[in-house]
């Protein structure tokens, strides 16, 4: 960057971009200035005074307007009479900062002594204890003894539910306002506020229902004390007892990087996920995750997980069987038969690849499809004209246009909502929304188009020329779209029209431009990429083989049904063979997010019962059908897949597990700076290039005729974050939200 500012911090020279504050500049040379209220993702407010440092600037001679220099040519520094807050003071040329003078150290000590005057002696029972900035900074800089009389201490409420997910301990709060600022500036849910003043100042929520936000869990990560705790993790474990495994959230197309924190538990007699924490990936989720990703983990150790293969016996009952018998039965039924395979879009790439190979290489007469079927109708277009390989949402801003069509970003991809909202609100990108109803994103739109229910495809096909002309002058064009109220043909037609807009306005195949599909789950793109193009068999088949299928409409008619599942769902209950699979936490693999970033997840828990990973089950049946597969693990499957799948060429588990240092650094020893989000050591993944970016790709316009409105598709409920499902139902902590959204959907 051209605009670098030179300064010295404790005598060490450092050059940083203009506008950076001293705290961040010091961070660049690993000088950790203690902070409480400052957070690198929030605007500075200078409320806590913990970051006081000694600042000086070169002395300017008023007569000559020149820097005064000593005899040996060094500039004379004019030190400011009082300490300055390093979190609000931007760097300036020639500035000198001292962070280790007696005055600075005393100031830190004094600020801590003040903060502790009314802080409770809670560390032993506090969920933050062990990863608490206040604890750590008190040990490093604070006084060992309080001069304050116990009687004069404030005693405040200790168990204040702010909504059903977050609890507040008023005594522990140090009034840094990080939580308020996160909710206001990042999530844009203005649900928290300060009430009263001085020593009586406290955090209140005034929304109805209280703390009404999808992102509240993040405030517990950035709260520098244990004032905010989640209902889920409250008293569940001490932080130092937890093992942490890098993973990827499975619930939406964003693919948030998470850490699964596990520990022994008597109830299950083994390990259990105690909490899910965001893992930093500045390309994907920064340091955030939504509350669904944070709290929908209880299914991994639900009481009703399948633990044994089940086979329907002569009397028509599903009874426990052995793997050998069950696998042999499936192989016998599938041999020479007409097989229809369906695979759900939460399943990992490796499983989907083997499932696809089974149908292309092993079975003679079979077809394979993805469930849900609607995204499968347009995933090829979304891939071809998807966002460019080097897309970085952080670079979207002034001059760029974000077009959101027929989807609700916050409900379908909450963390994309956060990121794209910042591109619009903080950096000045232009937002155009076309939808049949209102969404939270509508607040920031500079133009809103409302069409009739189910008319998205019509609108897009009619507007192509006009929109293309309008978007020609934009620097980048990002088009986010969903498939609400559309049939498969309708959704495909919409995607095609939007691709045409990209081509016509000259934005196809470019970085920071392209389509961003609001897929239903984490691996919709990946599963689609893995499956061979087969013609779907219609009518009744001999064998239906369902891998993680949640949608009853996608189940083919068959004489014999095989199901790989975690639970005895309604679909599994009607099957002839039910094979217990392992959840994402009990195995490793990779997912491809909605913006085509391929990311690895790792094994955090031992398998449950006799459950096996899906790829193993598929391989074992394939072997019994004569295949010579010999995969010992997902890495071998991935390597084989990358050899044959052109999109994934060049990717390997090694490349996916590489992590580069990220800015701002979080999750290191200085938890006070970035909060308790985890440092990324498990890999930041890699986005594969969109076909339209590659030379030789023919991006030509294709005429689109929107199909008539599909009456059945109009009945589909729009996607909501907490919509009822097999996984979310098993997280009691979210049951209130699931119920509320079900009720809302029923009355809608």
């Amino acid at each position, binding site marked *: 960057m051209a605009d670098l500012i030179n300064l010295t911090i404790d005598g060490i020279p450092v050059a940083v971009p203009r506008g950076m504050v001293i705290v961040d500049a010091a961070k660049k040379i690993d000088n950790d200035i203690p902070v409480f209220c400052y957070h690198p993702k929030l605007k500075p407010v200078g409320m806590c005074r913990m970051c006081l440092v000694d600042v000086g600037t070169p002395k300017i001679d008023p007569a000559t307007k020149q820097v005064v220099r000593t005899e040996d040519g060094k500039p004379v520094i004019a030190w400011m009479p009082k300490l300055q807050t390093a979190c609000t003071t931007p760097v300036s040329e020639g500035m000198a900062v001292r962070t280790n003078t007696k005055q600075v150290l005393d100031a830190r000590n004094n600020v801590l002594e003040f903060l502790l005057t009314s802080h*409770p*002696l*809670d560390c*032993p*029972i506090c969920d933050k*204890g062990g990863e608490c900035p206040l604890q750590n900074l008190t040990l490093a800089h604070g006084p060992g003894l309080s001069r304050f*009389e*116990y*009687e004069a201490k404030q*005693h405040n409420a*200790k*168990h204040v539910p702010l909504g059903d997910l977050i609890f507040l301990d008023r005594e522990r709060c140090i009034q840094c306002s990080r939580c308020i600022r996160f909710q206001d500036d990042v999530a844009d849910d203005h649900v928290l506020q300060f009430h009263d003043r001085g020593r009586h100042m406290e955090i209140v929520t005034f929304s109805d229902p209280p703390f009404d936000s999808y992102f509240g869990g993040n405030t517990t990560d950035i709260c520098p004390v244990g004032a905010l705790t989640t209902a889920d993790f*409250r*008293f*569940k*474990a*001490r932080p*130092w*007892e937890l093992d942490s495994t890098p993973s990827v959230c499975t619930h939406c197309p964003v693919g948030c990087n998470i850490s699964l924190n596990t520990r*022994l*538990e*008597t109830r299950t007699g083994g390990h259990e996920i105690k909490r899910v924490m965001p893992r930093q990936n500045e390309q994907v989720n920064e340091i955030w995750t939504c509350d669904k990703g944070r709290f929908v983990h209880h299914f991994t150790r639900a009481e009703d997980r399948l633990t044994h293969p089940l086979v329907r016996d002569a009397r028509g009952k599903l009874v426990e069987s052995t793997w050998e018998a069950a696998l042999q039965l499936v192989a016998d039924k599938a041999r020479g038969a007409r097989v229809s395979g369906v695979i759900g879009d939460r399943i990992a790439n490796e499983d989907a690849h083997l499932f696809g190979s089974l149908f292309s290489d092993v079975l003679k007469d079979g077809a394979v499809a993805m469930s849900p079927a609607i995204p499968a109708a347009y995933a090829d277009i979304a891939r071809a004209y998807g966002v460019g390989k080097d897309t970085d949402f952080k670079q979207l801003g002034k001059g760029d246009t974000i077009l959101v069509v027929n989807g609700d970003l916050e409900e379908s991809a909450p963390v994309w909502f956060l990121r794209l909202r910042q591109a619009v609100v903080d950096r000045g990108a232009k937002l155009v929304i076309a939808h049949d109803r209102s969404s939270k994103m509508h607040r920031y739109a500079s133009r809103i188009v409302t069409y009739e229910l189910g008319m998205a495809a019509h609108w897009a096909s009619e507007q192509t020329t006009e929109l293309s002309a309008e978007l020609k002058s934009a620097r980048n064009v990002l088009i986010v779209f969903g498939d609400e109220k559309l049939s498969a043909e309708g959704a495909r037609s919409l995607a095609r029209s939007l691709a045409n807009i990209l081509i016509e306005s000259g934005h196809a195949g470019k970085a920071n431009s392209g389509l961003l599909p609001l897929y239903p789950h984490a691996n919709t793109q990946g599963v689609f990429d893995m499956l061979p193009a087969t013609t779907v068999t219609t009518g009744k088949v001999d064998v239906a083989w369902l891998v993680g299928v949640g949608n009853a409409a996608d189940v083919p008619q068959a004489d014999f049904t095989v199901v790989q599942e975690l639970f005895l769902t309604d679909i599994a209950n009607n099957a002839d063979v039910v094979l217990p699979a392992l959840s994402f936490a009990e195995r490793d693999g990779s997912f491809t997010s909605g913006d085509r970033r391929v990311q690895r997840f790792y094994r955090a828990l031992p398998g449950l019962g006799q459950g096996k990973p899906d790829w193993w089950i598929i391989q074992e049946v394939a072997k019994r059908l004569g295949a010579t597969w010999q995969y010992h693990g997902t890495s071998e499957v991935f390597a084989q897949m990358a050899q044959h799948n052109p999109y994934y060429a060049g990717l390997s588990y090694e490349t996916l597990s590489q992590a580069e240092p990220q800015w701002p650094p979080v999750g290191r020893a200085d938890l006070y700076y970035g909060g308790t989000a985890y440092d990324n050591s498990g890999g930041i993944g890699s986005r594969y290039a969109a076909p339209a970016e590659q030379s030789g790709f023919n991006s030509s316009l294709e005429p689109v005729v929107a199909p008539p409105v599909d009456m059945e598709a109009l009945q589909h409920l729009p996607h909501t974050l907490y919509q009822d499902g097999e996984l979310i139902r098993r997280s009691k902590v979210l049951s209130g939200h699931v119920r509320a959204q079900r009720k809302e959907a029923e009355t809608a």
Partner: protein
Amino acid sequence: MSSVRDILSRLGGIPVGFATVFKTFFRKPVTVQYPEKQKPMSARFRGRHHLKRYDDGLEKCIGCALCAAACPSDAIYVEAAENNNDKRFSPGERYAKTYEINMLRCIFCGYCEDACPTNAIILEPIEFPTGYTREGMIYTKDKLLEPAPAGVQGTPQATPAGKFERAILPFPPIDVSV
């Protein structure tokens, strides 16, 4: 020709052994028939652990797991849960739902006692942990928790709101009046 000394040396150590036996046979033994008889221990002897209660019957343990963190042999396992006024186990919000010590692992160092912020766990010179099975040597909370004082209800108790809000109370103020 054989002297007495010769005979003795040929008998080896046997007479010496017998001599020792006869000498000690009539002496008072230093060992006792444990566990029927017990010797008085130093009051500070670190024997088996007990989880203590307050006089009102509430448990002192707040489930903080600091003992488990301090334990050098990883012998302690704690799971915490939340109190409420209808079912209160300890003062404050948190109590130990599960508390186990593996007595086979414990080296009776007493670090757990040092770490405890509420003096809940005490190693006492009574009743030493013995057993026939490995499982039996894992002492669970019901074994470790001392009985409630006479005439006082054990845990859980129903308690009035606002009375037991804090887990850790400060030491009583030092009287500095002269």
